[in-house]
């Protein structure tokens, strides 16, 4: 099957979920869902060998050919790695959720539909080669994650968190779209591969920096980099399987993916390197520092995720340095990209398992507050083991995979001393120092997470539930991930060869022709060098600080809430909400007459302006058709009827006069040989008169006060303006012969191309079918609107005038 169709399989499977949930309610819906990511994972895994050799797959599904927009699935090392993460972790998370979410109490049909939509969106993001469809999938991940975070939508916090994540990520997404458009203007294509091919020319362009910054805004918001990270802790209101999946393994890594994917395009720029590496490193330190302030287990993990994403981001920034060095493939600089990808895989394994453990603790004890927890070690031995493995890996201890990637991270940061451009020869030393500080805090919060939950004194009276070990089913996924954590430590080079090297070759195509050329060997023991001493320092200082944590933790309370970014966000939301309200209250008067005045005056202004700006106004009476007696009579009737409406003293007269106007227009259509229009007009007039009569029953009499309508000069001016404008437009449309009449085109093609004889109908259903489709959709909406207005109104206001 074509690869591009595989992207849509989860979203198609989502169609059946409500059915499965309703009909086969006794079986947990998750079991059916599990098949989708599992099958996809196995299928994609079969592509591994050839991608490992440097092979790529391209598959295309055209979508809007006239705009050159297509779904292009491009599978190389980088996208395959992410695809495997999405489907693999996805399968484990679904398995976990089967035991986590109760089939009787939870709205599983909603949950799994959102999850499957998300899966498709994520596959689309990492496989799209076309920037526009990439953006489409990107926003789809924002929307599905919004729905997932707000899954328990009756809780205020859930809705707040969902809105916050959406506001921030969609803001970034829109910025990114701007960047994409600039890229396409510069390169003349939306294809990432083609853009990469012309990277050096792009770098010369004036828009280059703009595109770079805008794209980075998208990546930073999605990957929760400073200062946009504030949505991620609030997103922890989502059910734990969602946090494990979206907020640690997949969606937040979309930003990482984007930066990695576009590195070949942007790496030439100094700004790119400074921004990506700088923001990443700062985020890492900042978030690892504030992780210790958290008391919620998932809050700690959220900050740790932010921090680790910053770490990966900074590595990608450093990897861009390799672009500027001759023979970088042989220097230390080559380690950065490898370390980034390697750590990304490791992070997915250990953070996934940690999130699941946090969920288990929450599920089995009823709380996630680390101050109430403690001493669970003997009660939940399996969970403790998994948590220990995950945390120590995160802390960077052997024999766990986090140790390996942390060593490589330090190596990569130290490698900057070889780099002597962009004033790096002076400033490079900051990078390893900041990285080291961040690592110390990472070490502390990892221990904090596991030991304050599982060691210490058990306080059963603090827990809502009696703690006990989780059921086996819930433990399968975290145990499996923890096993991977250990396994990867012992076979790092297998993972390196199969997964990391192809991805690295995709990030740095300018260094390597094929994944085999990536000459990096991971080893647990790398001799007595600077990295080792830095690691020992981390353990020593970190251990000491953890030991004395109670003594200095209250320092965090000194940090004032008033200047936090969260506060800034809240204030901004309040301000924009209130401001928008105040602004719209000025012009939204609630009277339809005000709105009509706005619309008509604006329309008159715009049309007249266009007419005069284009010097399009001409009058040419030379070839007008003769006006017959019939036309004059009908027009007189028309004018008479219109004037009657204005002067009528009862509604009945007004309605009849309105009918007369409509029928006269229909007669005009007959005379001008437009039977279609005449027919439609006649039937519509008939039906609307019937409708008026029905509504008439409910309407009050026109009161004496309203009878004498006051003459309003402003309104008269607007009315006159509209009339004059329309007349002018009609006259100049007749006189203009700049372009051939479009009716000629229809006359010629209507039979040849559409196989029809009736131009009006062919236009309706064929040439302008889209218009008709949306028109009937609008009709349907109008019908629903009237039902809600009349049949479903909440209170019946009897005896009240409706136009009051």
């Amino acid at each position, binding site marked *: 099957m074509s690869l591009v169709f595989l992207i849509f399989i989860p979203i198609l499977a989502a169609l059946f979920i409500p059915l499965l949930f309703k009909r086969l309610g006794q079986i947990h819906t998750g079991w059916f869902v599990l098949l989708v990511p599992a099958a996809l994972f196995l299928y994609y895994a079969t592509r591994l060998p050839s991608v490992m050799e440097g092979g790529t797959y391209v598959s295309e599904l055209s979508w809007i050919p006239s705009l050159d927009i297509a779904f292009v699935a491009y599978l190389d090392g980088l996208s395959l790695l992410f695809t495997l993460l999405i489907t693999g972790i996805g399968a484990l998370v679904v398995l976990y959720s089967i035991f986590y979410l109760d089939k009787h109490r939870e709205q599983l049909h909603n949950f799994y539909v959102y999850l499957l939509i998300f899966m498709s969106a994520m596959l689309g993001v990492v496989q799209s080669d076309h920037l526009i469809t990439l953006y489409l999938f990107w926003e789809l991940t924002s929307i599905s994650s919004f729905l997932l975070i707000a899954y328990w939508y009756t809780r205020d916090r859930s809705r707040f968190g969902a809105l916050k994540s959406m506001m921030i990520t969609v803001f970034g997404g829109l910025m990114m779209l701007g960047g994409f458009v600039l890229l396409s203007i510069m390169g003349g294509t939306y294809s990432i591969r083609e853009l990469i091919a012309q990277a050096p020319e792009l770098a010369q362009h004036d828009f280059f920096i703009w595109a770079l910054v805008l794209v980075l805004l998208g990546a930073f918001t999605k990957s929760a980099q400073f200062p946009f990270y504030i949505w991620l802790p609030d997103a922890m209101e989502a059910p734990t399987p969602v946090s494990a999946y979206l907020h640690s393994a997949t969606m937040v890594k979309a930003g990482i993916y984007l930066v990695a994917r576009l590195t070949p395009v942007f790496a030439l720029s100094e700004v790119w390197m400074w921004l990506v590496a700088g923001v990443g490193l700062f985020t890492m330190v900042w978030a690892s520092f504030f992780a210790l302030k958290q008391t919620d287990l998932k809050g700690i993990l959220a900050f740790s995720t932010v921090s680790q994403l910053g770490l990966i981001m900074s590595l990608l920034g450093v990897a861009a340095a390799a672009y500027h060095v001759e023979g970088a493939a042989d220097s230390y600089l080559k380690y950065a990209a490898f370390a980034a990808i390697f750590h990304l895989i490791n992070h997915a394994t250990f953070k996934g398992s940690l999130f699941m453990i946090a969920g288990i603790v929450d599920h089995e004890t009823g709380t996630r507050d680390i101050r109430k927890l403690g001493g669970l070690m003997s009660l939940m031995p399996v969970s403790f083991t998994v948590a220990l493995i995950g945390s120590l890996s995160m802390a960077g201890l052997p024999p766990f995979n986090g140790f390996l990637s942390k060593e490589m991270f330090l190596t990569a940061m130290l490698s900057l001393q070889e780099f002597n451009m962009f004033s790096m020869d002076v400033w490079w030393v900051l990078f390893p120092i900041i990285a080291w500080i961040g690592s110390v805090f990472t070490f502390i919060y990892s221990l904090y997470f596991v030991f304050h939950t599982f060691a210490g004194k058990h306080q059963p009276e603090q827990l809502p539930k009696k703690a006990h070990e989780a059921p086996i089913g819930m433990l399968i996924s975290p145990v499996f991930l923890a096993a991977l954590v250990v396994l990867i430590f012992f076979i790092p080079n297998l993972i390196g060869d199969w997964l990391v090297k192809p991805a690295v070759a995709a990030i740095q195509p300018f260094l390597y022709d094929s994944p085999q050329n990536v000459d990096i060997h991971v080893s647990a023991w790398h001799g007595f060098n600077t990295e080792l001493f830095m690691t020992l320092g981390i353990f020593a200082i970190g251990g000491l600080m953890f030991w004395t944590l109670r003594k200095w933790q209250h320092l965090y309370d000194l940090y004032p809430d008033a200047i936090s970014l969260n506060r800034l966000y809240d204030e901004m939301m309040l301000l924009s909400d209130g401001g928008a309200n105040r602004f719209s209250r000025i012009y939204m008067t609630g009277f339809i007459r005000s709105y009509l005045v706005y619309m008509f005056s604006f329309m008159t202004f715009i049309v007249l302006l266009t007419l005069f700006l284009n010097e399009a106004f001409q009058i040419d009476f030379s070839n007008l058709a003769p006006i017959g007696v019939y036309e004059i009579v009908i027009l007189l009737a028309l004018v008479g009827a219109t004037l009657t409406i204005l002067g009528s003293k009862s509604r009945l007269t007004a309605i009849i006069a309105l009918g007369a106007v409509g029928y006269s227009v229909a007669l005009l259509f007959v005379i001008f040989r437009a039977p279609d229009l005449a027919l439609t007009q006649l039937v519509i007039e008939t*039906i609307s008169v019937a*409708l008026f009569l029905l509504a008439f029953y409910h309407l009050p009499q026109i009161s004496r006060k309203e009878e004498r309508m006051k003459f309003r000069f402003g309104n008269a001016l607007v009315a006159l303006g509209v009339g004059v404008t329309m007349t002018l437009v009609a006259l100049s449309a007749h006189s203009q012969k700049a372009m051939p009449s479009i009716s000629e085109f229809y006359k010629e093609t209507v039979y040849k191309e559409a196989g029809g*004889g*009736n131009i009006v109908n062919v236009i309706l259903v064929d040439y302008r*079918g889209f218009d008709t489709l949306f028109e009937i959709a609008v009709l*349907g909406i109008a019908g629903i609107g009237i039902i809600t207005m009349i049949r479903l109104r909440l209170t019946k206001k009897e005896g009240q005038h409706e136009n009051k």
Partner: protein
Amino acid sequence: MRTNDVMLQTATKVVTFIILMFAVHIFFAGHYTPGGGFVGGLLTASAIVLLMLAFDIPTIKKILPINYVVLSAVGLLIAIATASASIVFDVPFFTHAYDYFDLPLFGETSLHSALLFDIGVYLVVVGVTMTIIQTIGEDE
């Protein structure tokens, strides 16, 4: 309100069918001569409205137990399905297909996928018009 207008009722019984037949004719002929889904739908709706005027809404609802909201939804779905069907044949959205067939009884006839789309338009127009009129008419 109940009415008992014998003349209107007797005439309606005959006229309704004439209008309906005309609506069907105009609907099918739409692609070649004046007509189409929009007018056809409106005419059908006007026939039903006539029935409702001559008799009363509860009676007509008993005779024609149609949920007009569902009807318009079905129409919209048909219209979208017709437009999307073209994707399956790997041509742009909304591409129509037509050909001439030699059918028994009818002789050479043109069959056009636009007709399917027009059915959607027809159903939506009937559905929405009747929804509006019925809702307002039933409202006390």
